[in-house]
C-alpha cells in the first residue's frame, strides 16, 4: 500500500534541520540522514522502523508525512504519488491526508479535548467539510473508542500522559486516514503505562483495521507490536522481517546486536550440507542448523556465529551431547529476578549465558556449555 523506494535525504550543513530531540539525532553530523531506504507496507499491517537514534527512522517517517523534503526517491500511497524526486512531485503535508501521532503528542493546549479531535475536520474547505452534526458524531465516536468521552469538554492540558496519548490517536484517526504514522508515541510514558499502552495500541490498530508505520528505538516494543520490522542503521535498512525472523535469524551483526544480546564467535565455514553448516572456530567446530538471515555462505568464507545467551545450556556435569560443546570457568554472575546471567570464560573469549533463576553457579567453578545447532545463527563477518 505504502511504497517507499530508494529514499534519500541529506543535509547540507550538519544537524540543522534535525534537532529532533536534544539527546537524539543531533549528535551525529552525517551528511546522509537517509541513504536509499526502500520498503513497502502492506494493507492492515503495523510496520515498524526500528533503530538507534540517528539511524534515519524519524527522517524517513517525516518524509512520508511530508514534513521533510527528501532529496531523492519515490513515495507512493495506493495509487497516489506523494513524492517523486525525478518528476518533481512533492504533495504538501496538508494535502496528504495522513494521520500522525507525534512523539510529544502535540496536543494543542489552547483547545478542549473535543476541539483537538475535531480540528482536522473543522479546517476542511467548505465543500468537503461534513456538517456540524456529523463532525460531532465522528468526534464522539472516536472519544468513545479511546475512552475519553468523559473528558470531551475539558482543556486538553488537564489530561494525564496516557490520556493525551489516546487523544493524539483519536485526532489522528478522525479523518479516517489511509495510513497512520506514529513517531515514538510511547516514549514519553512511564514504564508501567508504556507496557499497557503497547497492547492498547495494538488492539485499536487491529480492531479498526489500520495500516500504520511505527517508529521506535525500543526493540521490545517493536517485537511486541509489529507485523513486520525494518531495522535501520546509519541511514539504511539492515533487515526487514517479522519479529520472529528478525530475532531468530538476524541478517547482520548490527541486527543481532541491536535486537536482544548475542555472543559472537568468528569462524570459517568448513562444509555446507543443505541447511547444516559446519564452522571452524578457535575453540573448536560448531554445527549450525538455523541458517543465515542473508545469503548462504560458501565453504571457506569467514562468518560470525551469533548465539543468544538463553540458547546456551550451562552445567557442571559433562554433557552427553557431542556437538557444540565448550568448557570454561564462571567469571561473574548476576541475578536479574526472572533470570540469572553467568559470564563464562571459554578459551580467550567470554560468553554470556542466561538461564533459569534457580540455577546459580559460584564464580571460579568449571562448567560445560552446550548449544543446540538449531539455535546458532550465521551472520556475515564484519
Amino acid at each position, binding site marked *: 500500500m505504502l511504497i517507499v523506494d530508494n529514499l534519500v535525504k541529506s543535509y547540507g550543513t550538519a544537524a*540543522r*534541520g534535525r534537532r529532533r530531540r536534544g539527546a537524539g539525532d543531533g549528535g551525529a553530523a552525517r551528511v546522509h540522514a537517509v541513504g536509499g531506504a526502500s520498503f513497502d507496507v502492506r494493507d492492515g499491517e503495523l510496520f515498524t522502523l526500528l533503530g538507534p537514534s540517528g539511524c534515519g527512522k524519524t527522517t524517513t517517517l517525516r518524509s512520508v508525512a511530508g*514534513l521533510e523534503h527528501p532529496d531523492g526517491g519515490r513515495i507512493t500511497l*495506493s*495509487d497516489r504519488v506523494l513524492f517523486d524526486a525525478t518528476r518533481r512531485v512533492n504533495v504538501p503535508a496538508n494535502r496528504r*491526508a495522513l494521520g500522525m501521532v507525534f512523539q510529544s503528542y502535540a496536543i*494543542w493546549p*489552547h483547545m478542549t479535548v473535543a476541539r483537538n479531535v475535531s480540528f482536522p475536520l473543522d479546517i476542511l474547505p467548505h465543500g468537503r467539510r461534513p456538517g456540524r452534526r456529523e463532525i460531532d458524531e465522528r468526534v464522539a465516536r472516536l472519544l468513545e473508542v479511546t475512552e475519553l468521552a468523559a473528558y470531551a469538554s475539558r482543556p486538553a492540558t488537564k489530561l494525564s500522559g496516557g490520556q493525551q496519548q489516546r487523544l493524539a490517536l483519536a485526532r489522528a484517526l478522525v479523518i479516517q486516514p489511509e495510513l497512520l504514522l506514529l513517531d515514538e508515541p510511547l516514549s514519553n510514558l512511564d514504564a508501567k503505562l508504556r507496557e499497557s499502552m503497547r497492547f492498547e495500541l495494538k488492539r485499536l490498530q487491529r480492531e479498526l483495521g489500520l495500516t500504520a508505520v511505527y517508529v521506535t528505538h525500543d526493540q521490545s516494543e517493536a517485537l511486541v507490536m509489529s507485523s513486520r520490522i525494518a531495522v535501520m542503521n546509519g541511514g539504511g535498512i539492515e533487515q526487514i522481517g517479522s519479529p520472529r525472523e528478525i530475532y531468530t535469524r538476524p541478517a547482520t551483526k548490527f541486527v543481532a546486536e541491536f535486537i536482544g544480546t548475542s555472543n559472537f564467535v568468528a569462524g570459517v565455514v568448513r562444509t555446507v550440507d543443505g541447511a547444516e553448516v559446519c564452522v571452524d572456530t578457535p575453540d573448536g567446530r560448531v554445527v549450525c542448523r538455523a541458517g543465515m538471515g542473508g545469503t548462504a555462505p560458501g565453504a571457506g568464507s569467514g562468518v560470525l556465529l551469533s548465539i543468544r545467551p538463553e540458547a546456551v545450556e550451562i552445567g557442571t556435569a559433562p554433557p552427553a551431547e557431542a556437538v557444540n560443546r565448550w568448557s570454561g570457568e564462571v567469571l561473574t554472575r548476576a541475578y536479574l529476578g526472572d533470570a540469572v546471567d553467568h559470564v563464562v570464560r571459554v578459551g580467550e573469549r567470554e560468553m554470556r549465558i542466561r538461564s533459569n533463576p534457580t540455577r546459580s553457579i559460584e564464580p571460579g567453578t568449571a562448567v560445560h556449555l552446550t548449544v543446540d545447532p538449531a539455535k546458532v545463527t550465521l551472520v556475515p563477518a564484519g
Partner: protein
Amino acid sequence: MTVTTDLPAKPAAPVPALEGPSRLRRLLSPRILVVGAAVAVVGFLAVVPLGYLLHDTFVGDHGLSLNAFRRAYGGNTQAGRMMLDSLEFAVGAAAFALVVGSVLAYLQVRTDLPFKGLLFAASLVPLIVPGILYAAAWIFLGDPSIGLVNTLVLHPLLGTSPVDVYTVWGMIWVQGLHLAPVAFLLMVAAFRGMDPSLEESAAMSGAARRTILRRITVPLMRPALISAALLMFVQSLESFEVPGLLGLQNNIYVFTSRIYFVLRSYPIDYGSAGAYAVGLLAIAVAGVLLSTWLQRGRSFQTVTGKAFRPQPVALGRARPWVGAAVLLYFLVTVVLPVAVLVYASLLKTYSTPSAKALRGMSLHNYATVLHLPLAATALKNSLVLGVGAATVVMALTAVVSWVVVRTQAPGRRLLDLLAFTPIVIPGLVLGLALAFVYLRVPLPIYGTLFILLISYCTRYLPYGMRYASAAMTQMSKELEESAIVFGASWWQTFRRVLVPLASSGLIAGWIYILVVSFRELSSTILLYSPGTEVLSVLIWEQFENGQLTTLAALGVCMVLILVVLVLFAQRLGARTGIESDTAN
C-alpha cells in the same frame, strides 16, 4: 482500510501538466503574500531611513563630499570634547548600571537576601518612570542650589553643597540608576538559567566561594554580561533625556544633545546634524563589533532555557548589612525620586520643605495641567501612537519571527539582522533620518502622526521581535507540524494554532511597546509638529519653559497612567499564563 472517498484521486500520470498553474498559485498563496509583505515592511523600516541619512550627509550640493563632517567636527566646534564626554557618559553609565544590576541579581537569585520583593518592585522603575521624569526628579534632589540632598542633608552637615547633578558624573549617576534595573532583569534571567551543579561541583573539588565566583560563575556569565553591557552602552549613548535635562545646563554636550542643538539653531544645518548622527551610529556599531569579537569562539551553552532552583548561599553575619543596603538602594532609586516628584507637584514654586512650603501646598499644578490646551491632544496622541505602534509591531514580528525561527528560508538570518538593526540606531538619529526621508518624498506624511508611528514602529521592532521569537521558540514545533499533517493550510495553522499559542508572549510584547511608546522622546522631539504633540513632548516643553512644578504634576499623572498599564499587563500576563504552560 480503504477510506479514500473524500480525497480526490490523484493519479500519477498527469503531474507535469499541473506544474504551470500550481506554480503561479503557489506564488499567490497567503503564505507568500503575508510573509513577503512583512519582510518588505521590515526591510523598508530598517534600511530606507539609514540610506537617506547617509546620502544626505555625504552627498552635498556638489556631489560626494565630506563638507558636512568638516562643519561638524572641524575648527572650533569642540567636537573632540563632545565625543569624549559622550564616551565617558555612555561607558560610565553602562558600567555603573551593569555592576549594580549584576550584584543585585546575584544576591537575588543565589543568596538568602531579605526583602527580595523590593528588588523586583525597583526593577519596574524604568518602565513606570520615564527617563525625562527621572532626570527631573534628580534635579529636585541634586541641584547645587535647590536640590534636597544638598539643602536638607549635606549643607547642614558639611556647610557646603558638594553634589552637582549637572556634571558628567551626575549624568552617569542618573542614567546608571535608571538603567540598573534593566541590567538586573537580564542578569537574573542569566543566573536562573545557569545549572547550579556547575558551581556545586567546583565546591566539591575544594574551591572556596570566592574562587568559585571568580573561576566558575563570572566566566560562565561572561556572554550574558557582554550582551547586557552592549545594551546598556547603546541605550546610554542614545539617551537624550538625561544629557538634555542635565548636561545642557553646564554646556556639556553629547552626540544626542548636540544634534538637537544643531537642529534648533538657525539656519538649520542638516548636513552637520547628519554628520553627528553618522558619528554616533559608527560608535554604536563599533560597540556591537567589539561585543561580537569578545563573544567569539564561545559557543558553549551553559545557560540553558531551563530554570533551576539552586540552594541559596547563606549570607550569614553579613545578612543584616546587605539587607540594609538593599533597603537603601530601594529608597534612593524608587522612593526618593517618586516622592520628590509628588512633593514638587504640590508646590507653587519649588523650595526646600519647611513649614511655609507645607502650608502653601495645593493641587494648583494639577488644575494647570488639566487646563493646558495641549493636554487632551497629547494624551490622545500618545494613546493612538502607543496602541498603533504596539499593534503594527506585534503583527509584523509574529510573521517575521515565524520565518526566522521556524523556516529554512534563505535570507532569514539577514531578516533577523534587519529586524534587530534599529536597536543600535539612536532615537535622535532615526528621527533625523526619517525627517530626511519624508521631507523629500512627496507623500503627505511629514508633520503628521503617521511619521511618528513609523518612527515608533522602527524603534520598537527589535523588542517586539524578542517577545515574538521567544514565544515562537518556546512552542514545540510538533504543535505546528501536527496541524499541517491534519490538513491545515499555512494560514489556518498560523491563525488557529500559532497565534493563539503565542498569544501571551505577543500580548506581553504589545503592552511593553505601548508602555515604552508613552515615554519616547528622542525621536519624537525632532518629528513632532503643532497638533502632534505627545505627553513626553509636553513634559519637555514644561522643562524648557522652566515650569518645573507643572512638569512634576504632569509627571505624576503620567506615572499613574503607566502604573495602571503595567498592572493591567501583569494581570493579563498572569491570566494567559495559566492556560498553557507551553507558551508562558
